[in-house]
Each structure stands twice: as C-alpha cells, then as structure tokens.
C-alpha cells in the first residue's frame, strides 16, 4: 500500500516535472504596451521570432494600448503567473506611481530580458537661430519663454531631459508643446511648429542624416558611434555626469511568482534571440545600445533607473506624488 502511494506520488511528481520541462506546451501571449508601428512594437516584433526559435514555442503578439501603457501592464499583472503571458514594455511604468497613473509598476514583475537602451538627443529645426547646446542656452536666456520645446506628456523622455537641464542649469524658461509621441513631435519640428525636441536617437537619426534637423547635443557622457562628430552634453557642462548615462529602454517581463525554470527558459530564449545578427544590426542602425541583461543585473538596473528618474522629476516638481511614498529611495541613500 505504502509503496503504491509512493509510486503514485513519484509518478505525479514525474508528470509534474515533465509538464514543466515541456514548457511551452501552448502558445504564449505577448502583450505589447504600445501601438503598432512604434519603437517598442518594432523591437518586440523583431526580437521575438528569434527567441521563438530558441524556445521552440509560439509567441502571439498583440498590441494593447491606452492610458500610457497602464492598461496592458494591469492586464498582464492580473493574468496567471505561468509564463504564458508576457509583458513587452518600455521604461515608463517605472514612473506610473509618482505620476499618479497607477499603483503597479515593474516591481510586480520579473524581468525576462532588458533588451536595449536608447540615448536621448537634443535636436532642433535647421532654421533655428542656435547651432549647439551652449548657443541654445544663451538664446533662451535672452528670449525667455519664446523657444518651443516638444514634449510627450509628464514622465515622457522629453520631460525627464528638460528636468535634467533645468536642474543642472538652474532653470529653463521655454514653452513645452505637448505631442502624443516623439514621432508626431519630430514631424512638428521639421515643419517648424516646435524649435527643439529631446528625442531618442533612433527616432531622429534619419532626419539628422538628411539634414532635416540638427543635433544640439547628445545627452551622453561620450561621443556616439552613430554620430561621431556630434557634440555630447558633458562637453558643455560637467554637471550632467550626475545623471548620465540615462535613456529609455525596452524589456520583456512576466508577473512575479512565475516558476523559476520557466523564467530561466524564457530568459535564455530572449538572450539568444537578442544576439541574433539581424537584431544586433537593427539595434545598431537605430542607435540603440544592446543590453540583453536579466536576473539580478536587470533588477539592479531597474531600481537604479527608477530612483534616479523619479527623484529627478520630484526635484523638478513634475510629479504628483513623492517617490518616498512608494519606498523609492533617493539615489545614493
């Protein structure tokens, strides 16, 4: 009798491990936080087929937009932690709490892979009366409020970059014109609706190459290999070293509580996918820095990013709630 029970139990255990070993045994849903055709969408749709190959399964990707990605985040957070629902997102959920956009962020998730990081760049309309960062700052001092900066809403990349500038330079008197994404804002820049746009390098690089916009400064601590001649911001002001390097990123996540071996399998698959020459080439062309980090390294990256950015925005008085309320420590504390 006892033997039978042990036998049954071990059989059960065997099938259980077998079931996990078989992951994925059905298709996996990948929820993309942003709309079709955007940066996140392009990155995810180009890395996932390579990851599928390594995984030996199918990932069905869907775009779920709305409320700056909070709808998708809440959807995946509420789904079963079995590795069959992935969140494919960007950096902004780390700011949801301080911006009052939701009560969940990536702390509810386990990172599968932080794929790549972008570099911000300050670009201007070619007809604008300044040619680099220093001239721009001088012009703004002489004409307060007249220079139009593009923005993508509170917490977006431009708001973080302008917060950085104003905390380094002790103020920035410009008019921020809101757009619903960096694509439309860069279109507005080329048409002269705005003068300066802090954008991610990948979105602006083709316009820069064609001379439809000019680089004022790359927001980085060293020259960029894609634009070796363009000035970088620490050339103008050392104080930016405190905040840089900083940039938006893309990552794949699963809800906390997903079995470890599933996380390991997915992480390995996305790590392999990210190293595929096609993907490496795509990231390089668009000026993204390939990261493909996972596990503790990814967790450390996320919390460092969140601390730095949330407090930067808090100090610039752009948040709705203090990071302190959510236990986000000031960097260096």
């Amino acid at each position: 009798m006892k033997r039978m029970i042990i036998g049954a139990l071990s059989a059960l255990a065997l099938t259980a491990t077998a079931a996990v070993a078989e992951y994925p045994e059905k298709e996996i849903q990948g929820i993309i936080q942003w709309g079709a055709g955007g940066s996140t969408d392009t990155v995810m749709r180009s890395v996932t087929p390579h990851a599928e190959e390594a995984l030996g399964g199918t990932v069905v990707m869907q775009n779920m937009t709305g409320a700056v990605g909070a709808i998708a985040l809440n959807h995946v957070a509420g789904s079963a932690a079995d590795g069959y629902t992935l969140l494919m997102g960007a950096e902004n959920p780390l700011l949801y709490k301080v911006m009052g956009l939701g009560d969940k962020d990536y702390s509810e998730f386990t990172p599968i892979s932080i794929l790549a990081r972008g570099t911000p760049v300050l670009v201007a309309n070619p007809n604008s009366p300044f040619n680099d960062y220093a001239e721009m700052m001088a012009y703004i001092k002489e004409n307060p409020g007249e220079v139009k900066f593009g923005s993508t809403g509170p917490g977006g990349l431009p708001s973080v970059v302008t917060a950085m500038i104003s905390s380094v330079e002790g103020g920035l008197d410009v008019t921020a014109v809101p757009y619903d994404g960096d694509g439309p804002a860069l279109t507005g820049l080329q048409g002269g609706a705005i003068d300066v746009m802090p954008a991610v390098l990948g979105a602006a690089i083709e316009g820069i190459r064609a001379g439809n916009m000019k680089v004022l400064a790359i927001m980085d601590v060293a020259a960029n290999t894609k634009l070796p001649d363009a000035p970088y911001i620490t050339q103008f002001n050392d104080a930016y070293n405190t905040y840089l390097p900083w940039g938006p990123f893309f990552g794949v996540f699963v809800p906390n509580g997903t079995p470890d071996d599933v996380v390991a399998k997915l992480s390995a698959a996305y790590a392999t996918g990210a190293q595929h020459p096609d993907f490496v080439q795509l990231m390089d062309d668009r000026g993204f820095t390939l990261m493909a980090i996972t596990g503790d390294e990814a967790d450390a990256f996320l919390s460092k990013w969140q601390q730095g950015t949330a407090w930067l925005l808090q100090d610039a008085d752009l948040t709705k709630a203090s990071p302190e309320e959510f236990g986000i420590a000031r960097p260096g504390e």
Partner: protein
Amino acid sequence: MEHIDPEHHDGTSDATPGGERDKRRPGEVFFAGFLLIASVGLLWSAWGIENPFGPNGLSAPRSIPVAATLAMVISAAIIIFKTAKLPLDRSETLARDILPVTAVLFALFLIAYGVLLRPLGFLPTSALFLIVAIKLLSKRGWLWTLTVSLTSLIVIWLIFRIVFSVLMPAGIVPEAEFIQLFRGLIRGGMAQ
C-alpha cells in the same frame, strides 16, 4: 383613432426610422429628457476636469470637453422644447413600434452574452447565442439550426482566432492547448 395599420412602416424606414416629420413618436420626449439630463451631468463632469500640471487656462484638458458638453446641453434643450410642441403620433405604440418583444429579448441576449463571455469563454457563449437566436427567429428544425449556427461559428473562429490571432477569452475551452496539439501534429506530419 383606433385604426391600426400593421404595415405603416413600409420596410424602407429601417435605415432612418425617424417616424413622421410633424409628429412625435412614443417615448421621444422621454428620450430627449434623458439626453438633456445626461448632457448636464457630463457638463458638470467636464467642468470638474483639473489640469494636474498647471493652471486651468485655455489649453487645459477641460476646454474642449466643456465646449462639447455645453453644445450638447444647449442642443438637447432646444430638441426637448421642439419635440414637446409636436403632437403625439397616435398610430404608434411604444410596445409595438419602438420596443417590440423581439428587440427587447435580443438586447437581453446581448447583455447575457457580455456577462457570460469571460467565465464561459468565447466558443460556448457564442454557440449558445447563435443556436438560441437562430432557432427563435427562423422557427426551423433543430438539425438545420445546429448546422447553420455551428458552421458559421467555426468559420468566424477560424478567421479571427487562427488567421488573425485575436485571443478571445478562452473560458472553459482549452483552446491554446488544442491549437498547440494541432500544430504539433502538423509538425510531426511534416517531419515524417
């Protein structure tokens, strides 16, 4: 007065069935009143929209909503005033012309569908809906009803689920496992 013409809707009226121009349909004033009250409520809600990052100036998030709901309130007020002045169309009744039993029944079906969709899943809910609806409307045999409804459901499912990978709630049906099994079979078949 009691003259009832069962065919006073000539079949063309179903595109824009606005009734007769100089008469008021049953329930029309009530509907206009509902719109007016709803518009006032929305205007109030629009006025409460605060700009979280600045003053409530011309560029505030409330500006267009307030303008739109104000236009709704004004036009709804004019509509109710105009409608109330028209004579009631006595040849129509609410129960027969506006809300016949079948329409109410189907509206209820749709609500039931919405409620059951998540727990039961797309396939069972839709099968249930189609079978009941088609049986009720066509008054034909069970075999015919089942064939027509299940065939069309399978076609719709194939198009949306397989071709367009629209993941309707699976509910109690293990769709994903089934598809994976099928994929495995095809792969296995091709490998041989």
